[in-house]
């Protein structure tokens, strides 16, 4: 299947006269009030196969990875001066750009196919978008993007520009527009950070760092006394870095516009002995201001009788 044509199965459905919409009734009613007419349910899929963490990189190397591919990377070295096969003398947090790129490619193709269907219907926009991604088997992730295509009453047929899209529908969309924002596109991204633990991280994540405290790295527990809590710097940094990377990657897709209604998801896959993969998804609607900011009056406060 090429990326630029609506599959035959969908064509049959889209060719019929009547519309189908994934909108709830209140959303449907609000849509009509806004002058948006639903023309059909549109969707896109993509099943992606993941590279196995860059092939051999699932095994621990002899030294930290290079930082050639431009992602976030930070290296920690053992303060103890031991040389032992048991003692990991270096640790590294590294952004797995190939995972991020695979995710982006999968999401983008599914999204592009949905827009393709919307274009085929002559729609101006797609509202109430839902997207899911799930792993059906090892290393395969499928992306599904679904929404309701709408035509704007009075707008030119088959507008030259791409249909706009938004996760919002119904009254929430009406309120967004009332607040002075026009939706541009749904945007989503994933970040992935691999933590290779070094001796200190490993000791702390395994809970025996306290007995090593006496060895005396800077910032380490005072005399190894039990009860003085120790933060695990490397892992903490990875958790924050994953979120910041997701935000930065998404910001690159905003082109200076605003991200509305962001949804953050985070997943940690512990691989043992402090090693882990931290992943973070971020999605939302890219919106653009079309009129000046005009705050509403403070709403009435109510109590419901029931």
């Amino acid at each position, binding site marked *: 299947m090429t990326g630029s044509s609506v599959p035959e199965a969908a064509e049959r*459905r889209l060719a019929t006269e*009547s519309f189908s919409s994934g909108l709830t009734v209140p959303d449907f009613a609000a849509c009509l009030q806004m002058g948006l007419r639903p023309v059909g349910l549109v969707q896109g899929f993509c099943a992606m196969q993941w590279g196995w963490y860059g092939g051999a990189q699932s095994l621990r190397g002899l030294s930290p990875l290079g930082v050639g591919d431009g992602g976030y990377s930070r290296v920690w070295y053992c303060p103890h001066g031991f040389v032992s096969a048991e003692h990991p003398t270096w640790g590294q947090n590294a952004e797995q750009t190939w995972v991020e790129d695979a995710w982006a490619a999968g999401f983008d193709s599914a999204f592009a196919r949905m827009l393709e269907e919307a274009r085929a219907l002559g729609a101006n926009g797609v509202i109430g978008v839902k997207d899911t991604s799930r792993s059906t088997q090892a290393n395969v992730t499928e992306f599904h993007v679904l929404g309701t295509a709408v035509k704007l009453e009075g707008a030119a047929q088959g507008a030259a520009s791409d249909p706009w899209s938004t996760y919002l529908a119904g009254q929430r969309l009406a309120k967004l527009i009332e607040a002075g924002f026009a939706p541009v596109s749904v945007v989503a991204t994933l970040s992935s950070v691999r933590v290779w633990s070094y001796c200190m991280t490993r000791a702390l994540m395994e809970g025996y760092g306290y007995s090593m405290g006496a060895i005396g790295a800077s910032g380490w527990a005072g005399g190894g006394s039990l009860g003085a809590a120790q933060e695990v710097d490397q892992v903490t940094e990875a958790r924050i870095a994953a979120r910041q990377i997701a935000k930065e990657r998404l910001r690159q897709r905003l082109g200076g516009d605003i991200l509305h209604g962001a949804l953050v998801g985070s997943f940690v896959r512990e691989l043992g002995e402090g090693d882990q993969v931290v992943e973070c998804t971020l999605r939302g609607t890219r919106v653009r201001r079309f009129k000046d900011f005009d705050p509403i009056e403070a709403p009435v406060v109510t109590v419901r009788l029931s």
Partner: protein
Amino acid sequence: MSGGNPEGLPKDVGHRLEELERGLFTSDLSVNEFLLVKEAGFHPLGFVMGSSIHHTGVQTRRWSKSQELTKLTEAMYNARELAMTRMEEEAEVLGADGVVGVRLDVNYYEWGSDAAEFVAMGTAVKAEDGGSYRNVLGKPFTSDLSGQDFWTIMQTGYVPQGLVMGTCVYHIAHRGLAQAIGTVGQNVELPNFTQALYEARELAMTRMQDEATRLEATGIVGVRLEEKSHQWGSHTIEFLSLGTAVAKRGDEVTLPKPMAIISLDN
């Protein structure tokens, strides 16, 4: 009641429905929904249901081929259709114009590992102005709309025509070992998978849309896409799409202007 024969309701039903005909109504609507259904000009007649127990058998499938399992698709469709038809018949006995708040459930029982009961239930309603709201097939309309949704849709000038559904049971191929190894270490799209997923969902949606066309509906609202694997294992999936077909009958009724509030309720 034998499968495949929609005629005739079980004997015990008659008595319950007779009582309902004498003016008592039962309904699973909440008080709010009840008031809104009345507001929309309808009166609830009674709680109606239909059920059908089916054997959800197996169909041979090829390990490495993605394909629709048409026998299973038909079985799943017929079971639901039968439950719906029986519910419609109950509504017919009550002289209803339609059924609101229809729920379609599947129950599995311990006494039959391959048996599944498909149930449809809802509240039969009748227009108070005497006008007919039956659909083009002369049957009471069915809809999965809540009382709130029913009132809202009537304000937009659309009238529900029927609960429409389409289903497709699909077997998604397992990948051979050679294929899996061949693609190690690369990020690639799996076009066959993508195609299979498209195909299965599209079939379900197209069938749903065909039902709406038979009802001469203008469109379908509230479409839900559900995936169920029943008891077939992870590679065989039923894709079910459901929604309420609506037809434009009148002009949009303008809703009273709401006001912005902050509710202090939890």
